Every structure is written in C-alpha cells, then in structure tokens.
C-alpha cells in the first residue's frame, strides 16, 4: 500500500514570498489533515478535511494560509506571504474515516523562511 506522498521535501524561501505544498493521501482515505510542527514541539493541526469539506480550520492563519482539497483526493497548502515564524515542518496525514481511525503521516515538507 502506497503511503502519504508529500512534495517538496525541503523548501527555502525569503520572507514575503509565497510557497505551496502538495499532499497525496492514501487511496480511499476520506480524512486529510495538515499539521505544522515547529522544532521541538508537537504537531499543530492547521486544517482537517473530510472528503471535500473542511471539518476544522480554527488554527489556520487565514490571512496568509489557504488550503484546498480538490475532488476529495489531493490537497495543497499555500502560504502567502511567508513570515520567519512559518519556518517549520508541514506534515500531511490521512485516515480512512477520521474519528477513531489511525492517521498515516507523510514525510513532511521542511520549510525555512529567511
């Protein structure tokens, strides 16, 4: 079974630039999560999709972050414009149903904003 795919693995940008991350979840998984993990901290939930719909985006800084999940499969997370404090690993995870099911994580995208 193929795992959760993310790209790129690494990205370095200057502050005020924009960046986009891509995630392809495990086939058939209805739930998709985007987490931000700052060095030394636990993953922070940014947004959670159930199929096409957003379940929760209360922690997403909507003035600069946006995310979409087209056709309930792939997802992109965008930051525009980036700030220094956005430097982190962005993890995508997916699960079969959401509640009460294991979440599978991708390798993440390490973003450095300089």
């Amino acid at each position: 079974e193929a795992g959760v795919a993310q790209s790129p693995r690494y990205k370095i940008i200057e502050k005020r630039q924009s960046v986009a991350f891509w995630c392809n979840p495990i086939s058939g998984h209805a739930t998709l999560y985007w987490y931000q993990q700052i060095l030394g901290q636990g993953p922070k939930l940014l947004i959670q999709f159930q199929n096409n719909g957003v379940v929760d985006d209360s922690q997403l800084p909507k003035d600069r972050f946006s995310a979409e999940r087209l056709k309930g499969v792939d997802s992109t997370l965008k930051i525009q414009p980036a700030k220094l404090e956005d430097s982190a690993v962005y993890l995508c995870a997916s699960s079969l149903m959401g509640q009460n099911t294991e979440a599978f994580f991708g390798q993440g995208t390490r973003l450095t904003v300089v």
Partner: protein
Amino acid sequence: QQPVQSPQAVILREGEDAVINCSSSKALYSVHWYRQKHGEAPVFLMILLKGGEQKGHDKISASFNEKKQQSSLYLTASQLSYSGTYFCGTEPDSSYKLIFGSGTRLLVRP
C-alpha cells in the same frame, strides 16, 4: 484544548520501564499514541477508545481512564529502538479533530 503530556523528557537504561502520561481538560472520545524519531514522520502505535480499555503492542501498552480524561503509555523492558518522541493525540467528543500534545522525549541508553 491541547492535551498535556508528562514528563517532558525521560532517560532510561536499556531494560528499564517508563510511563508517559497524557491528560485533557475536555471529554475525550479516543486517545492515539504515536512515536516520532528524529527527522521522520510520526508513526502510529495504538488507539484507545472511550470505555477505559487497555491495549498492548509487544512491550508497549496503554490505558485510558475516561473519568479522569487521562491516558498512560507503558514501556516495559525498554529497548534502544524505543528512543524517540512520543505524542498523544486526542479526539474530543463529537469532533473529528485529532489534536496532539507537546510530546515526551525518550532516550534509551545501552
């Protein structure tokens, strides 16, 4: 809303036992446990559902006290491969959100 984990860090000798705790102020539907090694993605260990069940996975087991909204992860006869950061993830009642604690760093030495 973020669960609280304790201790923040543990150092063990190979073969020793450890307990990691996770507590929440919210009523919980379930608790997940994950382990993350440096530079890698979190890997699922187990899920515990409301009902106070206890689960085991090799020499790693966990319990969930629904009344106290607490879960504990038990690592028995630790191995070098157990080193990493352990995160609990909680699903509040009536919510599909999976929210993680700040983690417990575990180092097992020979």
